[in-house]
């Protein structure tokens, strides 16, 4: 009964979104206040019904209602409660429901927090978001109904893929979707502004906090995915350039360009049409990400779904959204006038360069991810693009990016004197280069070009950022939260780059054949293999190796890597064991039992790998701080004078 109610709730939500998409737009065109005022309540009711559907599916998981096909496919009786709740988004249909729920949440958040938005603009924004909802609800109702019944009802269900039973991964998709779907807000604002034909700097101010907070969610979501892969997959890597990872990374890269471009548009009224284009692009890439992940067309370790009709639906949806918004852009963008003027050596130029670099990076990822697909589609063979391509591209892109990051935030708007900056920054520059190349020489007694560049880049970014902070502190200048957010996010970049550089340069790994009682030395650590014991978990049985790690006669830790067999699954699962500290990880993954009681074992030494995720945490916190700035609330109140003329001076808050 409850699953049917859930299905019914989805149908009602579908009907309401159609109303929400059409009525306010007609109202906006005719300037009819009654029709315009439909937008907000429709958004609320839509959230209510999507929420009900979501609750119905969750309930089916919690009470083990195996008569629902999706539940029986992705949960069983012994599965812990936490993974029954997260099982909702463990696969295709449920992920779509989660996606739609998050879209409704964002829609209502816009309706509630932007009360001071002009009514017509608000009506258009909510209508555009409803159109996206229509697409996803139709997708679910017509191709992927999560409430489909199963008859006869099985006594027990299949299990959620054991790989997905990890706390990090349980919250990874919701975080990622918060980011993906959050870019729909910036998209909706851009399209609404184009529809209205009035593309002034105001829309940048409205959409900026929404974009920044979505970006923060996306950053955290991607970092969690990377963290999960490192912990669960047993390969010791933190990023694989897998198509599904790339699918989330492309919107992040364009989103990063967008938050910087929005800053120029809001503060100086420049790059307006460019910013609109980026907003369209960021959301389109989020949709493309869905297409890549959910159509199963790619050779990918993540490809869980394989159903071409779904792919065709998403592709059609993608064409409508991207094609439609670009056509609208082409039609309307000539009404956009950028009036800000600036000299070549200015903050505006620096932000423009930032955009060029991030788009180049996104393009590099896009080519590497899509080229094999295109080649395959035309029947020209099966190819894939190897990791070294991506690694080389990003090493190349990192150099100008890090260099720019040391200058950009300290250059003044409109124009600056490069001699003034050169005087201040030159000593930091020289120090960073010298220290960056000397450090590996002192510690490891070798001079490695890539390591030197990486460390120099991290030092340069960290020192220039801190210098700016301290010079403001010493002048007793106010430090608004938006500024502190930027500082912390940029420090996060330095921490991230340092982590990546050291991990990639100094990691050691070894595949071993070990007999109980034997030991192996890696990077100065002795791994003593004590033996293997059998361990019983809640829904699995495991062989667990006991490994003691010693360094210089002191015990530095114990590792217990497992090989698990889950009830209902025939294949074993590797569960790696990691001893974590800020400066190094010791990592062991258990292979299989070999002849004569020996086991195959993979051991790693990973210095500073934690810094990679630490850097991402910094960036996320930076984003959250920036959004908490009083400025957005103040501007919001000031905007109660709705049609106040927009001037560059007023925008330069």
């Amino acid at each position, binding site marked *: 009964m409850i699953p049917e109610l859930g299905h019914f709730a989805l149908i009602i939500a579908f009907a309401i979104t159609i109303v929400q998409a059409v009525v306010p737009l007609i109202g906006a065109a005719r300037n009819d206040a009654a029709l315009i005022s439909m937008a907000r309540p429709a958004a609320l009711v839509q959230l209510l019904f999507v929420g009900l559907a979501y609750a119905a599916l969750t309930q089916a998981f919690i009470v083990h209602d195996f008569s629902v096909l999706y539940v029986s496919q992705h949960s069983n009786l012994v599965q812990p409660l936490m993974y029954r709740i997260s099982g909702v988004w463990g696969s295709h249909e449920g992920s779509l429901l989660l996606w739609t729920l998050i879209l409704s949440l964002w829609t209502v958040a816009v309706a509630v927090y932007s009360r001071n938005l002009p009514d017509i603009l608000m009506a258009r924004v909510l209508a555009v978001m409803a159109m996206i909802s229509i697409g996803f609800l139709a997708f679910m109702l017509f191709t992927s109904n999560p409430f489909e019944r199963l008859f006869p009802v099985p006594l027990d269900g299949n299990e959620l893929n054991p790989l997905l039973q990890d706390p990090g991964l349980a919250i990874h998709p919701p975080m990622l979707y918060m980011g993906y779907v959050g870019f729909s807000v910036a998209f909706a604002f851009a399209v609404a502004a184009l529809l209205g034909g009035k593309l002034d700097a105001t829309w940048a101010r409205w959409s900026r906090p929404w974009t920044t907070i979505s970006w923060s969610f996306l950053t955290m979501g991607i970092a969690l995915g990377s963290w999960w892969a490192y912990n669960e997959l047993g390969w010791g890597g933190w990023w694989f350039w897998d198509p599904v990872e790339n699918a989330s990374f492309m919107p992040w890269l364009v989103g990063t360009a967008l938050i910087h471009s929005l800053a120029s548009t809001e503060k100086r009224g420049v790059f307006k049409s460019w910013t609109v284009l980026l907003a369209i692009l960021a959301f389109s890439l989020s949709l493309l990400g869905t297409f890549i992940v959910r159509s199963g067309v790619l050779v990918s370790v993540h490809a869980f779904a394989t159903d071409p009709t779904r792919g065709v639906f998403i592709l059609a949806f993608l064409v409508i959204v991207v094609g439609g918004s670009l056509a609208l852009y082409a039609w309307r963008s000539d009404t956009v006038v950028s009036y800000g003027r600036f000299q070549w050596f200015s903050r505006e130029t620096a932000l423009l360069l930032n955009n060029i670099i991030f788009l180049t990076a996104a393009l590099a990822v896009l080519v590497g991810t899509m080229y094999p697909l295109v080649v395959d589609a035309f029947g020209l*063979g099966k190819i894939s693009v190897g990791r070294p391509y991506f690694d080389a591209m990003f090493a190349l892109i990192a150099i100008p990016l890090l260099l720019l990051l040391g200058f950009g935030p300290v250059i003044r708007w409109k124009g600056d004197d490069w001699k003034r900056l050169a005087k201040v920054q030159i000593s930091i520059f020289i120090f960073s280069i010298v220290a960056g190349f000397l450090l590996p020489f002192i510690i490891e007694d070798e001079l490695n070009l890539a390591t030197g560049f990486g460390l120099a880049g991290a030092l340069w970014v960290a020192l220039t950022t801190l210098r700016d902070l301290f010079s403001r502190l010493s002048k007793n200048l106010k430090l608004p939260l938006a500024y502190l957010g930027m500082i912390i996010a940029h420090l996060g970049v330095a921490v991230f780059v340092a982590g990546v550089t050291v991990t990639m340069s100094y990691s050691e790994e070894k595949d071993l054949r070990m007999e109980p009682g034997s030991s192996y030395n890696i990077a100065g650590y002795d791994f003593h293999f004590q033996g293997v014991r059998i361990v019983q978990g809640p829904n699995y049985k495991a062989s667990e190796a006991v490994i003691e790690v010693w360094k210089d006669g002191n015990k530095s830790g114990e590792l217990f890597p497992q090989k698990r067999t889950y009830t209902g699954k025939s294949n074993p699962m590797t569960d790696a064991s990691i001893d974590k500290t800020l400066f190094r990880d010791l990592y062991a993954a258990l292979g299989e039992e070999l002849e004569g009681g020996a086991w195959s074992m993979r051991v790693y030494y990973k210095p500073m790998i934690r810094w990679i995720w630490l850097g991402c945490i910094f960036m996320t916190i930076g984003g959250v701080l920036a959004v908490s700035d009083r400025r957005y609330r103040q501007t919001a109140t000031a905007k109660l004078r709705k049609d106040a003329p927009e001037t560059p001076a007023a925008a330069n808050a």
Partner: protein
Amino acid sequence: MIIALVFGVGLAAVLGLTAFEENLLYFYSPTQVKAGEAPVTHSFRVGGLVVEGSVKRAPDSLKIEFDVTDNTEAMTIEYTGILPDLFREGQGIVAMGNLQPDGRFVAQEVLAKHDENYMPPEVADALKAAEAAAKEKAKEAVN
């Protein structure tokens, strides 16, 4: 400034394309490898079903040998290291590596899919192609 920018973009494009070209990995089925279509100078990927009973382990190291087949031809793959969890006889796998001068294929990486029912698409296609070719041959024999 502009000259430097153009130069920089050009250089980046050249480096990028070179890196791209060098890292394209082509996929070949065992039939294609046997027919000599696979390159001997480049790494490539090969895939198929692991032949039942073909997995041989060295007694004192992590070296392992197994055959993969597209149901028409089979070839031997050598690998040293730990195999993925989903590696099993009868399962579809993809291996990345090089052909040695003596004709052995030495893999640097062996991939199996995370879903038990899921077949790597290249392997599925290779099996289909091999099956179609076999049918074609049978037809010719009848005629």
